[in-house]
């Protein structure tokens, strides 16, 4: 057969391989051109069908291996070129060729049916996508939050906290400072850090201005890490008006060394930036005891808590027993206990979030049911003809479920991408480290697929059960 050979540049797009003509060709407006693809490594050439929108001199971009456009050996050609794009491929251009070999099966028949009512299909897809986006982003944020809490606990690994018995949190606890010296004499204890914990709003900080202040002494470094100050220097504990800021909080507030922060009556100069890889990096200012007392109003003989580093982790229980049996009204908590409590709370929040998100995705599922039922209703005579031409009830039902799955897959993919984007936006907004992992993504994606299958079942049964003659009459 006569044809002109053109060179092509193959390239990938999201869903398909495209071939762009290097040569300029001339063709008539709206003409259906047939292109043969020649690949040196293959015995056979494959042809693809391309419709060029406008006539004239052009270098059209040709989509290949679409459901419509499959070569003479569809399975082989598709897989071959998905695996490898042959840069030496060339194109034979032919007009009015006879014979299209297609790859029409129930799957692509169903998927192409989705194109009939693009608006309605898009709405159903968006319904699922919104639900998947919600679940994906919330799961990623929850994972990030849990990871951050866990990291904070890791920083405190081996540390114990002495607080007033039954305190709601570290800011409400009051511990007598005389306990510090007693604890320092205990041979199981390596370091002791008295601390005042309080939460304050930065002047002019607005809604994002709430920070945790920890009044510390120089011994704080002994219980956390000797190298926790990344930039600048620690303050002298006798000074006032000095502060160390967590590295992520500094980034969030755009604060550097030497900057001044104002909290109520006190101005704080940033002398250093610390990093513990824990949650406090994003929330906390370390200040001198003197400033912490001024802001908290606590007298000199008390602090909020005493943080203890044991000589080894296995001494934690004996320290706890020593404190709680010798000093009435105090309790010793392990960071792990905090983590456990935190995890319990997070599990509850996660459950609530999943329920709310599931409602969203179920609404999306109802959208699919509606779309598919409308589709079945509109296509009732056509379904009758399918049955008249030999399609079984299960063939018809399967086709409807496949359409529904198609909506689920597209909606799931879009929702997953949107969910990742939303969680990354949240990462910037709330300064929470987000790790995109496969588990939450696959959970939400497969939830969408599962729901789309369920949503397709009822319309499929309806379609399958219509007697052929009633269907043809459109009843």
């Amino acid at each position, binding site marked *: 057969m006569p044809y002109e050979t053109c060179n092509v540049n193959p390239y990938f797009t999201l869903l398909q391989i495209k071939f762009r003509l290097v040569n300029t060709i001339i063709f008539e407006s709206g003409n259906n051109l047939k292109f043969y693809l020649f690949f040196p490594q293959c015995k056979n050439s494959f042809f693809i069908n391309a419709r060029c929108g406008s006539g004239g001199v052009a270098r059209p971009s040709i989509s290949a291996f679409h459901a419509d456009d499959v070569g003479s050996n569809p399975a082989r050609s598709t897989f071959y070129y998905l695996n490898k794009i042959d840069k030496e491929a060339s194109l034979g251009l032919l007009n009015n060729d006879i*014979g*299209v070999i297609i790859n*029409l099966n129930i799957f692509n028949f169903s998927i*192409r049916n989705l*194109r009939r009512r693009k608006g309605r299909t898009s709405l159903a897809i968006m319904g699922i996508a919104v639900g998947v986006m919600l679940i994906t982003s919330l799961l990623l944020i929850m994972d990030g939050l849990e990871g951050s809490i866990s990291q904070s606990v890791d920083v405190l690994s081996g540390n114990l906290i002495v607080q007033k018995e039954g305190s709601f949190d570290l800011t409400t606890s009051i511990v007598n400072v005389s306990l510090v010296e007693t604890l320092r004499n205990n041979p199981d204890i390596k370091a002791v850090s008295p601390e005042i914990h309080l939460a304050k709003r930065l002047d002019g900080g607005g809604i994002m201005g709430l920070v945790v202040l920890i009044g510390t002494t120089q011994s704080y470094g002994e219980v956390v890490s000797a190298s926790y100050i990344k930039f600048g220097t620690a303050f002298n504990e006798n000074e006032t008006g000095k502060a160390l800021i967590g590295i992520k909080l500094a980034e969030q507030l755009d604060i550097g060394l030497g900057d001044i922060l104002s909290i109520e009556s006190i101005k704080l100069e940033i002398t250093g930036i610390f990093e513990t890889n824990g949650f406090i990096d994003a929330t906390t200012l370390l200040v001198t005891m003197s400033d912490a007392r001024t802001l908290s109003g606590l007298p000199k003989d008390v602090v909020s808590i005493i943080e203890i580093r044991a000589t080894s982790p296995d001494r934690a229980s004996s320290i706890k027993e020593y404190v709680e049996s010798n000093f009435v009204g105090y309790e010793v908590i392990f960071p792990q206990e905090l983590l456990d409590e935190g995890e319990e709370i997070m599990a509850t929040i996660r459950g609530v979030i999943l329920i709310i998100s599931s409602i969203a995705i179920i609404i999306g599922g109802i959208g699919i049911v509606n779309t598919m039922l409308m589709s079945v209703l509109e296509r009732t*005579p*056509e379904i009758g003809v399918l*049955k008249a*031409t030999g399609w079984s009830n299960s*063939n018809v039902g399967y086709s409807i479920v496949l359409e529904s799955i198609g909506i689920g897959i597209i909606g799931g993919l879009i929702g997953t991408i949107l969910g990742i984007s939303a969680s990354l936006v949240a990462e910037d907004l709330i300064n929470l480290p987000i790790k995109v992992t496969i588990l939450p993504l696959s959970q939400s994606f497969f939830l969408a697929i599962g729901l789309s299958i369920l949503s397709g079942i009822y319309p499929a049964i309806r379609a399958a059960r219509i007697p052929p003659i009633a269907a043809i009459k459109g009843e």
Partner: protein
Amino acid sequence: MDIIKVKDLTKEYRFGETTVKALNGVNMNVVQKSLMSFVGSSGSGKTTLLNMIGGLDRPSSGQVEMDGINLSSSPENELHKIRRSKVGFIFQHFYLIPTLTAFENILVPTIPIRGQAFEERAKNLLSYVSMEKRQNHRPSQLSGGEQQRVAICRALINEPEVLLCDEITGELDTETGEQILRLLKKINQERGTTILLITHNEKIAADSDRIITLSDGRIVSDKTN
């Protein structure tokens, strides 16, 4: 040799208390490779009879036998196989799938079974009905006559022994209708397909091997040309 045997066929529809007999004791045989026309006024039972013969509907009593198989007692999962292998339907409305090309529409009955042979057959059928240049056009790009020719190809793709045509020229102008009927005659003569045709057109009926006239669900006349 008779390919279709209809015996005491009755079909009743109930509308509340009222029972309407669409078919009332129809008996007839159809000889293989014949071209037969059904005529009669609207509501005389022509379409009901054709649907029973094609296994699309079930009788209230009596039986339809096609190629030795009793359709009346066959379960639905057998009936669809019979429809696929032995019968081709052509309707007044073409019912082509709008998202598929003419070529793909012809292949629709074969989708659940697939096979390269069907594609070759579809190509030959397109040539047979002089539609090879329109194979990549979607139904919206085809005229009524062309769409009906695609529907005929779709009915023939499984090489059925019997073609059942229900007022297939109803949506076509006279000239196009005659072209379609000439095509059917060609199919009957060249391919040996038995054709049962419902028509209101006496000229068309007169051109067939046998004319059966129905009235009130009964055969009132059976003429052989």
